[in-house]
């Protein structure tokens, strides 16, 4: 600091700075920046539409077309500020703030969604493994698997709930079933693709070594399918939250987000912002589930990304586990 030596590297040139900026935009910083920029655009679109509506008295003529903007009234589209405010205010006199109630309800819904997700994933994987090994089964059953997804789940849900009540004496058992019904399909389709889509040369090599079916499955097909499976799981995770809410509706159970949606829809004019706030929390629950799955994918599929400090930390952790574990001495 005190000496200015000639041997110091050259000060960064403008091109170097540009390069760093490029690097920043390509990395995590860019993701955050783009996310914020798009968020601001969305906020601007929402509030802008409301502003235009207000200024034009909710209708104007664009040439021959009459445009009705009455859907931008506060009753239909509350200000975002009001939605945020609704979260912080209690919905019930002397009650806790709405966000507290909604987070509790989201926990309930997420819990059921995880159960349904797990059941659906298990069934989806099992079917895919079955189909990968039997062309006959695949051809015979696949049409039914596809058909199952064309049945409107909304019509099916009340029946499943009533059957669940009759069979198990509990409606809560039926709810993850409905979620699983929605969840298994992408898992089956993607996993099957991953199991079948192995390099022919690798398969030939395995066969030339006289590998058994099971060995081919676990050492070749399954590792090959892992990225496909995670793609499916990332589709399934937010869908599980939606599926659980659909399952909650006919039960009348008030503990989850479904109950909150019914309630705030019924009392919509007594607080439109509350229904929007509930929608927001529901979306957040879905995103949280998605991010968890995406993070798990990042942890598992290491061979597709450069190693970093967190990886080394995790490696140390696993080495430690192996160290204290009495069974693993290899």
């Amino acid at each position, binding site marked *: 600091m005190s000496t200015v030596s000639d041997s110091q590297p050259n000060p960064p040139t403008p091109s170097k700075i540009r390069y760093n900026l490029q690097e920043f935009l390509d990395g995590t910083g860019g993701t955050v920046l783009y996310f914020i920029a798009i968020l601001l655009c969305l906020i601007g679109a929402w509030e802008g539409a409301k502003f235009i509506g207000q200024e034009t008295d909710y209708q104007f003529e664009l040439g021959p077309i009459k445009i009705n903007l009455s859907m931008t009234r506060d009753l239909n589209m509350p200000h975002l500020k009001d939605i945020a405010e609704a979260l912080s205010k209690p919905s019930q006199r002397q009650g806790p703030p709405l966000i507290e109630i909604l987070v509790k309800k989201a926990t309930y819904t997420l819990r059921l969604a995880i159960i349904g997700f797990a059941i659906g994933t298990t069934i989806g994987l099992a079917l895919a493994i079955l189909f990968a090994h039997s062309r006959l089964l695949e051809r015979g059953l696949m049409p039914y698997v596809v058909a199952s997804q064309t049945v409107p789940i909304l019509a099916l849900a009340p029946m499943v709930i009533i059957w669940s009540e*009759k069979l198990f004496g509990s409606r809560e058992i039926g709810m993850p079933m409905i979620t699983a019904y929605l969840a298994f399909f992408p898992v089956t389709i993607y996993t099957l693709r991953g199991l079948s889509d192995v390099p022919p040369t690798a398969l030939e090599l395995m066969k030339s070594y006289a590998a058994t079916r099971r060995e081919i499955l676990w050492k070749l097909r399954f590792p090959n399918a892992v990225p496909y499976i995670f793609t499916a799981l990332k589709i399934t995770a937010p869908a599980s939250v939606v599926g659980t809410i659909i399952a909650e509706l006919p039960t009348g159970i008030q503990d989850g987000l479904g109950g909150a949606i*019914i309630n705030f829809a019924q009392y919509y*004019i007594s607080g439109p912002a509350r229904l929007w706030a509930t929608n927001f929390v529901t979306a957040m629950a879905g995103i949280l589930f998605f991010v968890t799955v995406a993070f798990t994918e990042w942890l*598992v599929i290491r061979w597709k990304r450069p190693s970093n400090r967190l990886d080394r930390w995790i490696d140390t952790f696993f080495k430690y586990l192996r160290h204290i574990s009495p069974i693993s001495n290899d």
Partner: protein
Amino acid sequence: MKHTRRGLVVLLMLCLVVVGAFRPTAEHKTAQAQDLTPVRLQLKWVTQAQFAGYYAALNQGYYEEAGLDVEIIPGGPDISPQQVLAAGGAEFAIDWAGSALASREQIVNGGGSGPVNVAQIFQRSGMREIAFTDSGITGIPDLEGKNVGVWFAGNELPLFAALVANDLDPEDPNDVNVIPQAFDMVAFINGELDAAAAMTYNELAQVLEYVGEDGTFPVYTLDDLNVIDLNEVGTALLEDGIYANEDWLADEANQATAVQFLAASFRGWIYCRDNPSDCVDYVLAEGSALGVGHQTWQMSEINKLIWPSELGVGQLDPELWARTADTALTYAVIENAADENAARTDLAEAALASLTEAFPELDVNGTDWVAPEVEITPNGE
């Protein structure tokens, strides 16, 4: 292989999360005494003061005193109480007479056993058709040529009957433009409907509770509304009654259970008449998102539909039953006249008798009951 091992550990951790999710939450399912008879009651809609009497009977221990372990099951938008009864998902259900008769006919035609009205809690109808005073609509004849909101799925009958009685054809848009109405009052407040269906205990209150865009309150008071009472028009149909399945009732032991259940439920409703604020608390305890002001209003309006009960609480007025059945027949909700087994009064009579015998001081008619003043709160909070 290192990767596989890592994957396995992650999988194991995921499994732990799932197992954690499976762990049952601490339910209020306490160990019940062995000798209590388990009974399930299916409500017509989600928990609200409309069903306060049953929650009162539960919380006051009336059901337990009667030897019953009662589970109250809330309803929802896509579930019909008759469907639950038919599937054996509940022993009792709250339903409206029109929809109960319709499903009874279908089930009986299919060789099954249909719902039977065993008690009639609401003695009069809470359904109204409301309009703003400046619309000039003061009665059914004024609906000619107007946009009239109606709830369908069986709830349209009272208004359709009233329109026909005034020579207006609900099917003919030149006579009256009937518009299916959602369960919120947005379309009415936005002026898209000239008149809208409203229950006194719910939607009517929501209009009064409405807070204007600039925060003004009240925007509307009862003076701004013309309320057409379908009880006065003479086409109102029976609303909340207690129903049980016919084959379940064939068993004499079940009949005894029904009498016990009805007597305890009647006591619950009497309690809510005399202690409305307690009953509102019971309801709020079940629904953390419900508005206190709105439920207080609803409790009061529900009491008005029950009290006074001239024949005694829960007793079915045969004349009203006949009117409901006739209207259902006229509008082809049912194809054949309702059979005489569709309602029975003996169980409710026995329940009332047992109640007056056990508690001679209990007022089961509420003839002198006066509805308390209830303040309308902004947004029903």
